[in-house]
């Protein structure tokens, strides 16, 4: 450290540090640096520092309240003589090298003189435009669907019902029909079942059986249950990955295979097991190549 410091000291431009991002990590770094005597510029793209942490309830591993940790740090950052806050700004360019950087920052217009503002909040309260109701943009999700899709989806909704507990069944049938959940259809379901689209997406991304990306012609599901694991399923998965050149959850470029893993299929006596389009196959890593070739060959024969 001392050697490094000397070499820096020989250069005329030193002693100031730019910290990018005013989240908890940025704030802590800025405070530590500033306390060690460096001049710190803290750049943040939002109008104020703090980042995501104020939105959290508890923090790991001590389960302390997030705001209780953050608030004192926010105050000391604002008051520290060595820290200069550059908020509502974007970093455009960094040039130079160790000890001699030139940074371009674009400060967006705030239309408030920061040096005079004392944060009283009167302007917010008195703004006339603030309370003007904003019209939501009405969009009929029905228009985005083709007639054929509309017919299918309407039929599904009709059989499953429009109750709140119908959302998952509707999505399951659509997932089966289309092999994934098309975005336009999700928007339409949200509209028909009168459930916020955000909640529909929450459900769609929560459950592993739903896919937002189109699946391939064949879905290979490798069982990763404990019984299959101790009998060597990880090696089977590795082999399949190597042959198809995809990771699990991905589809091959030719759209033929989608590789997925499943927790347990309950066919533990046969393990390791691979399921191809609902057919169970006991397999071992040395048979993977022949197994995949067989599927491709069968496909060609049908074609």
């Amino acid at each position, binding site marked *: 450290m001392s050697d490094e410091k000397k070499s820096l000291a020989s250069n005329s431009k030193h002693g100031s540090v730019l910290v990018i991002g005013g989240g908890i990590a940025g704030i802590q770094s800025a405070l530590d640096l500033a306390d060690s005597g460096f001049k710190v510029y803290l750049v943040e793209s939002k109008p104020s520092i703090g980042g995501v942490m104020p939105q959290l309830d508890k923090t790991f591993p001590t389960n302390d309240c997030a705001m209780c940790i953050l608030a004192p740090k926010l105050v000391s950052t604002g008051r520290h003589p060595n820290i200069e806050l550059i908020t509502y700004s974007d970093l455009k360019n960094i040039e130079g090298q160790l000890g001699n950087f030139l940074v371009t920052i674009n400060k967006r217009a705030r239309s408030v003189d920061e040096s005079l503002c004392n944060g009283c909040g009167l302007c917010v309260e008195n703004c006339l435009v603030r309370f003007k109701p904003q019209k939501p943009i009405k969009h009929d999700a029905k228009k985005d669907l083709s007639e054929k899709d509309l017919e299918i989806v309407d039929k599904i909704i009709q059989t499953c019902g429009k109750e*709140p507990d119908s959302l998952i069944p509707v999505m399951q049938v659509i997932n089966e029909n289309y092999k994934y959940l098309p975005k336009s259809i999700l928007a339409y379901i949200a509209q028909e079942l009168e459930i916020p689209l955000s909640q529909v997406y*929450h459900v769609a991304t929560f459950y592993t059986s739903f896919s937002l990306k189109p699946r391939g012609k064949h879905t290979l599901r490798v069982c990763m249950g404990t019984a299959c694991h101790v009998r060597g399923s990880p090696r089977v998965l590795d082999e399949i990955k190597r042959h198809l050149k995809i990771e699990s959850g991905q589809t091959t470029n030719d759209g033929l295979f989608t590789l997925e893993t499943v927790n347990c299929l309950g066919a533990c006596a046969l393990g390791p097991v691979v399921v191809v389009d609902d057919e169970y196959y006991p397999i071992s890593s040395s048979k993977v190549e022949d197994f995949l070739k067989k599927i491709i060959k069968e496909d060609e024969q049908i074609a």
Partner: protein
Amino acid sequence: MNKLLKNYNDFDNLQKEVTTKRDHNRRLITICNGTGCNALKGKTVTKLLVDELKKQGVKDVSVLATGCHGFCEQGPIVVIRPENIFYKGIRPENVERIVSETIKKGKIIEELLYIDPKSGKHLVYEKDIPFYNNQKRILFGYNEFIDPTSIEDYISIGGYKALVHILREKISPLEIINIITESGLRGRGGAGFPTGKKWESAYKARSKDKIKYVICNADEGDPGAYANRSLLEGNPHSVLEGMIIGAYAVGAQQGYIYVRAEYPLAVEYFDKAIQHAREIGILGKTILNSGFSFDIKIAKGGGAFVCGESTALMASIEGKPGEPRVKHIHGTTSGLWDKPTVLNNVETWANVPLIINKSSDWYKKIGTEGSKGTKIFSLVGKINNTGLVEVPMGITLRDVVFNIGGGIKNGKKFKAIQIGGPSGGCIPEKYLNLPIDYDSLTDAGAMMGSGGMIVMDEGTCMVDVAKYFVNFLKNESCGKCTPCREGLVQMHGILTEITEGRGKDEDIELLEELAEIVKDTSLCQLGATAPNPILTTLRYFKDEYEAHIKDKKCPAHVCKSLITYNIDTKKCVGCQLCAKKCPVEAISGKAKQTHKINQKACIKCGICYENCKFKAVEVH
């Protein structure tokens, strides 16, 4: 289409009719059509059997496709009644001989019999096979006698008798709850909460509009456990009857069954069971004109492990993401849609009609002081007789593994048994004489869970197993609370470092510390029990962790980064099989000359090791 029954007399008549029609001493070929046997072409064999009987002109013998018999290792299983001749591993080519020799001439085909590995004898009858005769199959035994898609079959073995008895005699809900409490039945989902107590608090709970729910938890997410599935596939009506009785006892009008979507056959059969029960008037509005109404809906899971947790399951039924909530208030007071709800496991529900029929005194006699009745376990992993076993509580692990399970595959040495799924623990050899019940398993650091028993031999690396479970739970954590979401990632990171040879001495201590924090601070049981695999493996197999960290060796030869494959020059005959099979062409050597593995190119896939016929490939 089944005929609608209008009153109790109609039911009695139907029962008489089907009992004579479906005499269990009639000549019958039963074949297992469970998922395990179906994967081994059980369905094809069934069809061939029917065709073959017709072709050979046999008329008085019928074929019965039943649910799981439990002995999945030997599938597809065929049992010929009334003699109960047991044939295993039936292939399509065996069908012709079964009909022409056994059915027509009564001759037993020796090649299809089960061979006792201990005595080497061919065993003809089911009752002689150690796998079966060491069990006590009070729930599961019916599977092999009935067609799961026929309500008449279920009635012919005494089905719905308990329900009709309750309705006819107008037995009060409190009396039923008393019977269940007295029987000592505890929740089979794993935690072992007394069922009677749960029902009682739901019965007493007040609901403004008098709406209450019962739920059957069939989200059997534990990897390596499939007992619930086989019960639903083999005898769905027993679960249904249990639910109807439960609903009557607590005063519920609507029931749900939450089944994993990975179990399509269970969903199909249970759906059929519901339809048939509705047709004959056992389910729906005023059941058999008793004034009691109850109906059931099926909810399919979406492949989220956490949905097996009661509050997450309820959220999922409500159409929300399956995230658990804090349980200040029990589900029995405020569960599904904030109404009093009783949630029980498939097996718990199936026990209910049995207890009503045979009395709580009879049930109490089975099992130990604290745990009554039987429990179905999935005995899987490196064991000879993989399958489902139903044993009385209190049986020792040794009995299960060595008598019923037939010991370890390929004569290897037993190392540990993992009980209770990802939340359970690994129990080492010195505890093999432990009697299985809720409390003793918890004391040993494992838990009953949904009944998965995964047997591990000397070729299983315990650090790798711990990593496997932590990885599983890391992926399945719903992400709502921080200790579980972040803690599991950290623990997985440390375990990965250890298995890849970068472990540090202080890692064991750090793991222990993290495990305790996650255990104490997680929101639901998924997180609170998540460290169990780490804690038990650390408790019983610390030496393996130390071997990974200090010696950079994996004693079980599992962790890829810590092993190397070599060819024994003395054993290699130069057959070139390994060189041909090697996916990265890392093996060199001409025909009839010893081969060599290029360690730089080797990806340690183990294919050469698997394929070598002379055992010349060694792992170090």
